[in-house]
């Protein structure tokens, strides 16, 4: 039998192809050997894992995933189904999982962001200061501004659509959540000084801005 176990690497995931003729114990042994010999090739990284070929139970899949992580420096984030559109599927599953993990951790940024300054975070971010017109905050998770937002805030970059943007003084030029863009109205108004903290979120493909209340906070989903 030639190559009873093959490992295919894609941009976001590993696909382990197991010959249907193998028993599970044989498969385990082959996978282990294969991983050990190719660990250096795959290096480090976070991946989604999928199986093709032999039918496996969930328990067996997890057992094989453990073998992969024990014998390499790979981090298996999740196990996905093997499907024809497997690549896209794995990529999405990986991104969703990673962004959910990132989005629920946060970073503090202290200081006012001025015109021309931009910060970008993999995680959610709390800005202690203003985001002035012409400045930009980008996050894969949520953005909370303990100050005024006059510039741009892009939350959920990478597609986490339940991300939100909150600010004590909400006067943004543009807010993006995932791939939805909302811009400020064209009517020129004097900056509102008696302001309520507000939150921007995405629902049915639209971005809404509401006063922060128990209701609006209850609607927030963190995963």
């Amino acid at each position, binding site marked *: 039998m030639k190559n009873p176990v093959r490992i295919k690497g894609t941009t976001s995931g590993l696909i382990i192809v197991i010959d249907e003729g193998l028993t599970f114990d044989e498969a385990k042994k082959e996978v282990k050997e294969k991983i050990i010999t190719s660990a250096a090739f795959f290096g480090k990284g976070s991946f989604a894992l999928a199986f093709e070929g032999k039918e496996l139970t969930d328990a067996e899949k997890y057992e094989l995933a453990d073998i992969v992580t024990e014998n390499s420096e790979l981090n298996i984030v999740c196990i996905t189904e093997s499907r024809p559109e497997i690549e896209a599927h794995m990529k999405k599953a990986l991104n969703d999982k990673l962004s959910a993990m990132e989005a629920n951790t946060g970073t503090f940024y202290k200081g006012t962001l*001025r*015109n*021309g300054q931009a910060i970008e975070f993999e995680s959610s971010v709390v800005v202690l200061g203003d985001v*002035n017109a012409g400045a930009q905050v980008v996050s894969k998770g949520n953005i909370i501004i303990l100050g005024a937002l006059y510039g741009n805030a892009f939350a959920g970059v990478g597609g986490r659509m339940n991300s939100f943007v909150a600010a004590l003084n909400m006067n943004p030029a543009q807010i993006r959540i995932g791939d939805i863009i909302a811009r400020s109205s064209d009517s020129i108004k004097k*900056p509102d000084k008696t302001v309520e903290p507000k939150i921007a979120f995405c629902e049915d493909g639209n971005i809404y801005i509401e006063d922060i209340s128990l209701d609006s906070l209850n609607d927030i989903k963190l995963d």
Partner: protein
Amino acid sequence: MGEVIVITSGKGGVGKTTTTANIGTGLAKLGKSVVLIDTDIGLRNLDVVMGLENRIVYNLVDVIEGTCRINQALIKDKRTPNLYLLPSAQTKDKTAVSPEQMKKLADELRENFDYILMDCPAGIEQGFKNAIAGATRALIVTTPEMSAVRDADRIIGLLEAAEMEKTELIVNRIRPDMVKREEMLSSEDVVDVLRIDLIGVVPDDENIVISTNKGEPLVGSDTMAGKAYLNICKRIMGEEVPWLDLYHKDGIMSKFASIFKKKN
């Protein structure tokens, strides 16, 4: 040891050069020794505003390149003692000097003068970097227009990144009547956005146009702008000066009217 102050704005045409000329003259009138440096190489005009254009022999680039000594290039002001101008070169461009060279020059001048004022060119490129290199204090000039405030904000960000020790704001060309009608940003509105210390508010005053054309700074004269500039000079020197009342200068009748209004 003197203090090196850069006057900057980002946007052009908001009054950097006029401000530099007036503050420099004002500080000298208050008894300080002052050098004004025009760092706008290729587009010099501080010499024109000071009325010293015809006296230029050597310039900033000559000093940097070692063609002459600093003292040979410094032009003594024709009216105010202890006031000198180091003019810019007109036939060169901003790349003729580097920030390191400017810092060295500023440090040398600090030995002998109380204040060295750098008139910064508009923009954020080499000319700006040259002008701020030796400075420890920055005066941001803006007009009450959104575009100028935006640029000022950008400049403040760049100065923070360059670790400027002190950054203060001058709101230039305020028109109190328009502010009253809420057709113009007030100095408070500007401070609200920029959030730095306000050191002066200069009203829009046609005397400024007359004075810059004549080449005679009006600081200290009996005009609103002249008073405002002198107040800025005193604040630079650390004095507490009450703010000019720009909004009630109409005369006795309107003062009575406003008192009457308040009572009702």
